[in-house]
């Protein structure tokens, strides 16, 4: 970290010369205590720590409480608050504009697991370079407390009765949809959220973060699985996770066999300190098993569930020009005058 002197006062800045305030957004308009606010804070912290230039990030969202939150961080980044369930398609098209940009999408459980299930599954299939955060609270907040598709069977909500259906498991859906980065976390565990965000921002492909983010107004009764109390009591972290940028040495000493390291495509490392079990997040079958076990033991498994840093991302597949597509001009985009005769000759 470097120090910079501004107007007589020392302001802490990161390697790109920006202070935390350069990553801020507008004041939140969500409820006090909403899990989404905590996640917004961690996005700010992660981007600051990673020395990301805000202009290199584009924010995307759909519709709902979660989708409002991109205005609460990174004011200097472009953003698009699109349609309900359609964040993935907007992000896909927009990121083709400049392949050097990092996409950061924020969605909710309604926006993703109900109306947006189709686009969610397909953006995963395409391995778009996009951090896809689902702020998952099991309930529709903006429309005042209806069940969402991730609500557990038997959940009781005011004015809604009892939920008769089985829930959608977003991490599971991501995994069976061939996502190359799947994590689950809990807004009540900010440190883990931050480290997962850092790893996700350096993943060259789709990174799905299913973050349980309690709705303090409509779904925070202690026995509800998307509540703070339930999360605190039932969270089982797969590992203690820390992200190490490419140029840095791993400074903390761990005992041999205590950690696992995953090397990202850009040479950075995710260090996973072993907790109760020996978990390998590069194994898809282990990932599926651990999610199934979480259901059986009624616990909230968190951490990096699966990662494949090797798969080519969508922009690699398309063999695009080095220069961002949106900076190409007429010379590059309109075929030469001499070609029109050839084209007419190709017709009959």
């Amino acid at each position: 970290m470097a120090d910079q002197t501004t107007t007589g006062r020392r302001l802490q800045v990161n390697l790109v010369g920006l202070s935390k305030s350069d990553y801020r957004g507008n004041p939140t308009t969500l409820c006090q205590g909403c899990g989404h606010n905590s996640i917004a804070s961690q996005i700010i912290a992660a981007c600051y720590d990673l020395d990301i230039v805000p202009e290199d990030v584009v924010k995307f969202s759909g519709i709902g409480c979660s989708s409002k939150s991109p205005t609460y961080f990174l004011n200097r980044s472009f953003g698009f608050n699109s349609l309900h369930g359609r964040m993935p398609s907007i992000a896909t098209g927009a990121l083709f504009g400049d392949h050097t940009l990092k996409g950061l999408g924020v969605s909710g459980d309604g926006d993703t697991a109900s109306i947006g299930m189709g686009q969610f599954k397909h953006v995963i299939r395409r391995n778009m370079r996009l951090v896809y955060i689902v702020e998952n609270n099991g309930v529709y907040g903006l429309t005042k407390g209806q069940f969402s598709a991730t609500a557990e069977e038997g959940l009781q909500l005011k004015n809604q009765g009892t939920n008769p259906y089985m829930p959608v498991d977003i991490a599971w859906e991501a995994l069976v949809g061939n996502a190359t980065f799947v994590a689950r976390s809990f807004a009540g565990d900010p440190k883990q959220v931050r480290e997962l965000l850092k790893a996700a921002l350096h993943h060259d492909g789709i990174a799905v973060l299913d973050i349980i983010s309690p709705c303090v107004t409509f779904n925070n009764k202690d026995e509800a699985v998307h509540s703070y109390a339930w999360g605190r009591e039932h969270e089982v972290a797969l590992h203690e996770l820390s992200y190490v940028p490419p140029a840095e040495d791993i400074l903390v000493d761990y005992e041999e066999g205590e950690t696992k390291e995953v090397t990202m495509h850009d040479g950075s490392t995710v260090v996973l300190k072993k907790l109760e079990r020996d978990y390998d997040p590069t194994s898809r079958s282990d990932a599926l098993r651990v999610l199934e076990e979480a259901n059986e033991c009624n616990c909230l498994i968190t951490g990096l569930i699966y990662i494949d840093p090797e798969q080519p991302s969508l922009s690699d597949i398309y063999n695009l020009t080095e220069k961002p597509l949106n900076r190409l001009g007429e010379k590059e985009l309109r075929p030469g005058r001499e070609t029109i005769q050839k084209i007419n000759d190709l017709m009959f």
Partner: protein
Amino acid sequence: MSVQQPMARTDAPDKDRDQVNDFSITVGTVNGSGSQTSNLTLLRALFKMGIPVSGKNLFPSNIQGLPTWYTIRVNKDGFLARREEHEIVVAMNPTTFAEDLEKVVPGGAFFYADDIKLEVNRDDVVAYPMPVKDISRNSDAPSSLRTYVANMVYVGVLAHMLGIDLDKLYQALDFHFKGKLKPIDLNFNVIQTAADWARDNLEKQDPYRVEPMDATHDYIMADGNTAAALGSIYGGVQFISWYPITPASSLAESLVQYLPKLRKDPETGKNTFAVVQAEDELAAIGMAVGAGWSGLRAMTSTSGPGISLMTEFAGLAYFAEVPLVIWDVQRVGPSTGLPTRTAQGDLTFIHFLGHGDTEQVVLLPGSVTECFEFGWKAFDIAERLQTPVFVLSDLDFGMNQWMTPPFEYPDKPMDRGKILWEEDLEKIRDEWARYKDIDGDGIPYRTVPGNRHPEASYFARGTGHDENARYSEDAANWVELLGRLKQKYQNACEVVPPPMVDTVEDARIGIIAFGSTEPAIKEARHQLAEAGVKTDFMRVRAIPFSQEVEDFIHQHARNYVVEMNRDGQLHQLLTLEYPDRAMNMISVAYTDGLPMTARKVRETIKAEEAK
């Protein structure tokens, strides 16, 4: 082979009454039997003989097995609309044999596969049996290809009976099979054998034949979807997301075919474009909106059902002021409707597409060449206006081969509209806000993601917003924003293509139309003029309407608005726009899934005029 005589007739047509280069051929076959190759070969050979010709595929929504027809019109005067009269009918399908026989005009010719054991129960037509099975069985074709080459038998028989040049048929096959000798020869040998058989076995008893002309060398033959794709490429299209749908699929497929040929960086071989086949039309337009927002020339192509799904995004793009191009290759609705038939039924739907107050800019190409021209112009207009631009083609343009003037290189440099990169923004940074109308024309300046100027970014949204794109529910702000969008839309009439107008002296009647009905109207006007009814013609090419549209309506006592839909949608829009002229406009709206005919236009106007 024994000499076969045509059926005995009591009322033989007069052989002296030769009818040269002026008739229609209809071929009835089984879908999926390869008849399209045969029909296109006939069409192209006639075109290469210099004779004005058109071909229309009237096909079912089916891969294989259902009846399908192809109709070719040969006309020395260049009238190429579909006709309801069939001088020559070829029957290859037993299922439709009786129906096909019924279609032949009295004195016409009926060619049929002789393995169809059904009675030719008309004595007012010339019937020619063709040994289709014999010839295909004796050809070099492996058994798996016999059904396909069987269709070349009627090509050969017609070639001899009508006088179609075999060399030109060979050229047509050469084009179709891209120079691959094996299929060319295989098919051509069948044509040759069939022609020889006809020469030796059939006696010409009908009056129809062709003679070479010199009326096509200034034309090419192409379909509207290919033209649209190529035009888009010359317009610099960079991003296409699409979902398969008849009759629009071949537009995107043509982009996939031609983009790598025309738009790779010559030094690096890298692509200056991306094509994504989306999971549905919602995602197709969503991606295009995202790409347009980020500064790419973005498009999607679809048909009516796809447009229905795209409605919400169309409203967002209109409101958030995102440029993109949407092609609607129209088919018959409502609902799944007639997926393989043509119509002009999406006009009002598209124009108002989106909930709340929405007015979309619509371009209306009226020829295959114009599909090319509007292909590139649509991007200039979209980026200039920062709004979606819809281009309405139809199945008749999109999937049929048309004789059309060659594509012309764009005569204007690209107009990228009011886009600000870092240095542009630096110059007006104090004054700029994303939705601020600096120039007073309703069109603000925009920045796009990737612009690294620290003040470039904004948060786009479909919710109410102020000049800085910040969320706003302020009443005055809302009124101002919607007012500016209205102003922008109204000014668009200066940017979009004006109508094409064709006038004659002393005409008091006007005909107004758009899109693919022009050939029928051209012919109807000729016929009306011969009957003493003079008409002027205006082909509307865009919404909003230019001043010329109003002028034309004012200049005519009665304006017949011709279109292929039930409710007279262009008539409705003109009436809304010019209510004081409502009494001067008469709707001629008709749709049955088939391209418009001159007869329909002529008879309706005649009847009205007689009132």
